[in-house]
């Protein structure tokens, strides 16, 4: 289930932009921890738990490598653990490495969810009004990909059937591939001009043409957008006041649990968990409806 599918594309786009911005913006371990946990959970709910767990198997070693290599490049910090080739390896550098690896992985998982939610049509709907030409260009490119792929296979087969396709030597193979590619270019370009003429015949580029969109901006979208923007504003304000300040060098600062900091953690949690909340709500509604039947 994807609760985000019920939203107008603006809502998820703003939401992911906000969480990614907040994540990349801070080095505060609690904020990053919250973001990481929520990113993985959101990704799990949207793309499937099994897939996400499997990707974690790849992500964790990368995180460990990032964390362990940081001390090799950064010799800041006062707590020296040991010396490696005469260079000090400090506790602070290791902790900073862990912190940054968490940041990078959470951004990666946010992008994964973003990618699963924002399909091509949503992207086009989003930017269709701002940049209609670019949006159209993007959607046409996406459309041409499978077409060209199919055409490539057809040409390949035809060349093989004609007996022109040579697979004797490495060089011959490359030459054949390039001939196929050349034919593909000619075919693609020629047929593309036909597409363009057809577009023109249907009035593309005339003034006053509107584009159809299946998405409607409802009250729920407005509420979600308001929620996202308000929480981001609160987080930015608190960060501006210094609640999100954190430093690793020369010594790791202690984590602050004052009023302002607590408010910051809470708003970050609310923002990051909003996606999970929507998914859970949608799933419960779905189950309830099913149980009524």
């Amino acid at each position, binding site marked *: 289930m994807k609760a985000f599918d019920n939203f107008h594309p603006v809502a998820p786009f703003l939401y992911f932009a906000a969480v990614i911005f907040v994540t990349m913006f801070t080095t505060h371990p609690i904020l990053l921890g919250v973001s990481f946990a929520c990113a993985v959970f959101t990704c799990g709910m949207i793309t499937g738990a099994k897939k996400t767990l499997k990707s974690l198997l790849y992500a964790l070693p990368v995180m460990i490598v990032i964390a362990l290599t940081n001390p090799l490049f*950064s010799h800041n910090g006062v707590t020296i653990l040991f010396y490696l080739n005469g260079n000090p390896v400090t506790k602070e550098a290791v902790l900073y490495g862990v912190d940054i690896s968490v940041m990078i992985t959470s951004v990666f998982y946010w992008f994964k969810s973003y990618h699963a939610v924002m399909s091509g049509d949503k992207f086009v709907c989003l930017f269709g009004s701002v940049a209609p030409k670019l949006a159209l260009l993007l959607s046409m490119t996406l459309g041409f990909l499978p077409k060209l792929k199919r055409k490539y296979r057809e040409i390949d087969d035809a060349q093989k059937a004609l007996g022109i396709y040579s697979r004797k030597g490495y060089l011959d193979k490359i030459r054949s591939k390039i001939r196929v*590619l050349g034919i593909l270019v000619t075919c693609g370009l020629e047929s593309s*001009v036909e597409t363009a003429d057809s577009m023109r015949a249907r009035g593309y580029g005339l003034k006053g043409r509107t584009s159809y969109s299946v998405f409607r901006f409802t009250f729920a979208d407005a509420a979600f957008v308001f929620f996202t923007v308000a929480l981001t504003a609160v987080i930015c304000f608190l960060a501006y006041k210094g609640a999100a300040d954190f430093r690793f060098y020369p010594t790791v600062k202690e984590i602050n649990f004052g009023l302002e900091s607590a408010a910051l953690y809470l708003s970050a949690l609310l923002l990051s968990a909003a996606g999970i909340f929507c998914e859970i709500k949608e799933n419960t509604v779905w189950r309830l409806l099913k149980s009524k039947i």
Partner: protein
Amino acid sequence: MDKSLLKISAPTVCEAAPETQNEKGKKTPRVRRRLVVSLCVYLIAIPLVIFAGVKLFNDRKYNIVSVIIAVLACVPLFAGFEKGRSGARELVVLAVMTALSVLGRLIFAPVPGFKPVTAIVIITAIAYGAQAGFITGALSAVVSNIFFGQGPWTPFQMFAWGFLGLLSGLVFRRGKKPNVILLVFVGVVGGVIFSLMMDVWSVLNFDGGWNLSRYLALLVSGLPFTAVYAASNAAFLLILTNPFLQKLNRLRDKYGVFNPQ
């Protein structure tokens, strides 16, 4: 002689002629407006972002500032394309070229560093000019990352491939067979600069600031990748430029796509 014959025989298909005459009268204010927009972005918005990064964020948020700058740098060029006079045909041809470069990246995905994207972007730029090169490059980054994974690096790839297209559109004479040595030079330098830029991004992302030792380490560890990438650029350019250019020029002559007049 050939070209003029084609133009006379193709007016039923080529409707661009009356439009271009109209455009010529309005050209100056449009160009001026475009210039104002780009100047605003390059001279005001980008310094403002850097200033905000230094002042508000205590100079430590290079990762996010650099992403914003990469996006901003592309905005005037996208706006120029959006407001420009390219019609349906130009649009569709650009879509095909972008799809081809993405397809190339997908086909050669198993070989790290071996991708024809740069070559196709440069060839498009030679045939159809700097703007077409920029759009093909920037869009190739966005679309291919739909398959390879979007991330904060997407704006950087957009910037790198886009500006490579833009520059090669300015360096080479439009539609003419390029000098082979210059072509190989652009391919190799383009590949190396691409890697240098992506490593800058990695350093900014890791350290939140500049760290020379990490940058050098990344450069050294990425050396084989960069070498394969630069060599493959040169190879693809050598093999593909003439046949592709011929086809693109033919399209220009036959249908009036991206005709400079």
